[in-house]
């Protein structure tokens, strides 16, 4: 499945991968472990934006709230960026380690061009270390530890066009750590009429996020929990910067949706859900979609059971009761809460089964039954 440099010579890159992807094809990322060839990522390592140079060739990253101080020859927490003699560079530019042509519903973005696909890619690394990470083999890896594709921003945009996908999604890991690739690709895509969405933990500083707002079309933010203790202990991050990002997105008019991976005993407390719903209503309004997603044991949390359905349904009830209009249940294919219901007439605006759209009654952004204007980005 690997794509060699040779395939790209003569402009064959996008065509070659597009042929492999097909309409809804998948190129699965793979982790280089024992016996696998390691990626060569050190040949092109451009300087990243948003960092300060300190004495003795140290640097301080300003990309995310971690603001890592990184000595010469060392890497930041994310593992994607390295200090080379006082210059902070990204190691995986043009080398995504995962590449798929996903339904946009898989992100999940339910109010953004439903029924379309997104060329979805990731580079290795993350600025969190969530004990429950569902993609830890790439998010917690360094770029050289995973297989990579040779795919520069122009190739990604060309690939999306050839695959007939209107969107590029930066996802799987944490796009904040491969900011430069994401920004360059999104900017180029914008010129070519290809949209971009960021699937993120929201742990990014305001300045880089503001700049991104100029080239992105939507953001999905993982709302890990409404608890600082959860963020610090389970994710090695903090809650407040994530809330700040959400408020920033709201202020900028960026379309965004929230995902809440509900983990038994750790972030399923009804009182905490109620507090979160109150904060969302106060700061983001009733129309931001929330997806309560079922947890499956992974990475460092293999000792817990998958989320009971009743926990997800209870959380949904709490949020709907607080006034939120679009609350979904995810990772439970066939559940009625996968559908979009019109807040005005209660009719089904979009009927889903998993990632498949079974029925779409949204017409020009309005409910097909009553004409109510539905929030989102529609075809």
């Amino acid at each position: 499945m690997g794509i060699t440099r040779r395939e790209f010579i003569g402009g064959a890159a996008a065509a070659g991968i597009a042929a492999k992807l097909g309409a809804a094809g998948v190129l699965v990322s793979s982790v280089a472990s024992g016996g696998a060839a390691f990626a060569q990522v050190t040949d092109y390592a451009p300087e990243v934006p948003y960092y300060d140079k300190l004495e003795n060739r140290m640097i301080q990253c300003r990309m995310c709230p971690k603001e890592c101080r990184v000595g010469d020859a060392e890497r930041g927490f994310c593992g994607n960026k390295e200090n080379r003699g006082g210059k902070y560079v990204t190691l995986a530019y043009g080398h995504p380690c995962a590449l798929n042509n996903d339904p946009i519903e898989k992100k999940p973005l339910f109010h953004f061009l439903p029924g379309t696909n997104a060329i979805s890619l990731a580079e290795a690394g993350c600025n969190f270390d969530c004990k429950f990470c569902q993609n830890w083999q790439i998010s917690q890896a360094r770029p050289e530890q995973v297989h990579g594709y040779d795919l520069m921003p122009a190739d990604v945009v060309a690939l999306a066009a050839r695959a007939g996908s209107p969107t590029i999604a930066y996802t799987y890991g944490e796009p904040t750590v491969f900011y430069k690739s994401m920004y360059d690709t999104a900017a180029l895509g914008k010129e070519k009429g290809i949209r971009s969405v960021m699937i993120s933990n929201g742990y990014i500083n305001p300045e880089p996020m503001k700049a991104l707002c100029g080239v992105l079309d939507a953001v999905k933010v993982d709302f890990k929990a409404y608890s600082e203790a959860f963020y610090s202990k389970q994710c090695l991050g903090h809650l407040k910067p994530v809330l700040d990002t959400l408020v920033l997105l709201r202020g900028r008019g960026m379309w965004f949706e929230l995902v809440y991976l509900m983990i038994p005993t750790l972030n399923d407390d009804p009182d905490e859900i109620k507090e979160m719903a109150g904060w969302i209503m106060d700061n983001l309004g009733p129309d931001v979609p929330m997806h309560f997603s079922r947890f499956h044991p992974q990475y460092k949390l293999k000792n817990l059971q998958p989320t009971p359905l009743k926990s997800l349904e209870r959380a949904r009830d709490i949020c709907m009761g607080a006034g939120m209009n679009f609350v979904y249940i995810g990772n439970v294919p066939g559940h009625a809460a996968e559908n979009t219901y019109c807040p005005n007439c209660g009719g089904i605006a979009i009927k889903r089964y998993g990632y498949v759209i079974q029925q779409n009654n949204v017409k020009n952004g309005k409910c097909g039954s009553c004409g109510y204007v539905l929030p989102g980005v529609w075809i």
Partner: protein
Amino acid sequence: MGGGKKISDDFSRREFIGKAAGSVLGLMGLAVAGPAGAHASPGVGGVSEARTRTGRPKVVVARDEGIWNGSRLDDVRVRELVFRAVRELSGKEDDGQAWAEYFDRGERVSIKLNLIAGRILSSTPAVAKAITGGIMLAGVDGRGIAAWDRYGWELRVAGFKPGRDENGVMYTSTDDSAVGYETELSEWGEVGSLVSRLVSRFGTAIVNVPVLKDHDLAGLSGALKNYYGAINNPNKLHENACNPYVADLNMIPFFKDKTRLIICDGTTAQYHGGPGYKPKFAWRFSGVIAGTDPVAVDTVCADLIDRKRVEQGLPTLEKEGRPPLYIRTAGDADHRLGECELEKIDVVEV
């Protein structure tokens, strides 16, 4: 100790490949054990633990300014320096007996170098060669020895030639296509990492060869921290001055149970601005620091760094607000990896 068959009897290339079907380490000619690390000899705290008659851990600081021949190291003098340290550590006057205190004939020895800082401030080929020579004196076949760090390019930059030397010793790296990391997490405390298969599968014993140097975040880059170069995610373990991460990492059985000997390369050392090489803070310590207790070795190394810092008019690591906290954690009741009180260590200078 001893009594084992020659490693070549057990692990000829052809036989090995047959035994370890699918093993990529086997394909490169490196014998492997299962990831459980079935090894015959106890490691830290076992028969090879160096203590003085008082029962206190012993750390040997051996120095010789004559190891330098201009800007180059004299291999013969370095060998004598390292051997002197091991003789003193073991209490044996005979070199063969001294090294045999730490290694059985049939073992496979994994030598973890520290090559992050380039040619001048990395574990040196001269010290590595002296160590491999000593291990072979203990009866270990050269083909049962691998010296390594993370990347092949680091080996080359530091002056090593990847591949086997004239004695069969393999110089290699985790990023070699035939090596890699385990795919199952090893976890202890706050650490969850994938371990280099040169630790988990190849080595029945490890020689830890750090460099005597300052670390801007952790305070010290010594023996305990050197194992950051043996896992997939060291970048996740640098917050809070690497504490308790360094100590927790060393609790993982692959490291705790297999570490047999520590020889810190102090031919060139650095008292500030590490881990990268900064010429203005580097000096020729012209020595090695040897021990079997990694906490005691690091405690002594931190003291040596502090002494040099004071001599140069800099505050101690403690006064500068970046003491190597993880050393004390490694010595606490939850870890018990060794002795972290300098006054409870017998430091022998030779």
